């Protein structure tokens, strides 16, 4: 399965737009600027994708995960090293809460935050493409990369894998926003990319 340069470019650019919106939502929640990397887009097996997020020192991960379905389907994840999780929850809930409350609320706070950010991310992509996508409820997963991606596709199955690093300034919290898209969706994506171009400048206009 190949992806052409313009298709890779389109997915990265649309993800860039979507993650910009998602970062603004996260910024509102944590009250600190969110720094973003340039998105990477690749066609990988699910196994290879899990190696990308499971870099050395990143073995124990925690993720909020939501599946989406529609003209294209897949899984969106907000991933952190587990060591960052409580810091993030503290950033969300405020410094004044005692540690035991933070631990109690950890999953709930992560799921809710993930829900806002992932919805913002996926909904912006859906809006750019002018197509509706439905999203599952958020679930919090713990494990290494392969456990987070399990069930998104077969291990050896190819997926379109997109990820972006982010960092919360002054908080030493970093993580990834990742998206795994089913390959059968890619054909649809090609059509949507063309539609996206046409909405801004219809064919023949000022060519």
């Amino acid at each position: 399965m190949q992806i052409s340069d313009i298709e890779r470019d389109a997915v990265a650019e649309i993800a860039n737009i979507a993650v910009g919106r998602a970062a603004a939502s996260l910024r509102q929640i944590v009250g600190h600027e969110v720094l973003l990397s340039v998105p990477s887009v690749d066609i990988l097996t699910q196994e290879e994708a899990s190696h990308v997020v499971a870099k050395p020192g990143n073995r124990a991960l925690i993720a909020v995960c939501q599946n989406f379905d529609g003209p294209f389907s897949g899984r969106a994840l907000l991933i952190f090293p587990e060591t960052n999780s409580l810091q993030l929850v503290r950033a969300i809930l405020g410094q004044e809460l005692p540690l035991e409350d933070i631990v109690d609320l950890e999953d709930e706070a992560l799921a809710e935050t993930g829900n806002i950010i992932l919805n913002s991310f996926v909904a912006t992509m859906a809006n750019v493409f002018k197509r509706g996508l439905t999203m599952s409820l958020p679930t919090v997963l713990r494990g290494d990369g392969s456990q987070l991606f399990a069930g998104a596709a077969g291990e050896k199955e190819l997926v379109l894998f997109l990820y972006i690093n982010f960092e919360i300034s002054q908080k030493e919290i970093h993580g990834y926003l990742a998206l795994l898209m089913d390959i059968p969706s890619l054909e649809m994506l090609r059509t949507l990319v063309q539609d996206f171009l046409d909405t801004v400048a219809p064919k023949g206009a000022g060519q």
Partner: protein
Amino acid sequence: MPRTVLVVDDSKLARMVACKALAKIHPDWACVEAGDATQAMAALQAQDVDISLIDLNMPGDGGLVLAADLRRKRPNMPIAVVTANIQDEIIARVRELGATFVPKPLTEEALSAFLTGASLRLRKVAQ
């Protein structure tokens, strides 16, 4: 009068979108494309550029660094930073540079509003 607009974005698609929208609004204006900050500075040396549209999130020097460089070299050039990153800090930094914040996805309406303001500014400077 016809102007030359420099469009800087690492995404070819985003450059196509911007140039197509520009061609629709001002068919007689020229669009010069650059894929990063280095290419943008080279384009600026090679030809007269009146207005710049700059993406924020690019490999190498990002849009804010490039906008600051452009502002130093060309104090009167209308510059827009185009991004979906609507965080307050970003919008504030864009404004500090005397540039205009234009949200992505770029719409013809938003681009047209920026270009109208840019034309007025250029005319005023020329007087």
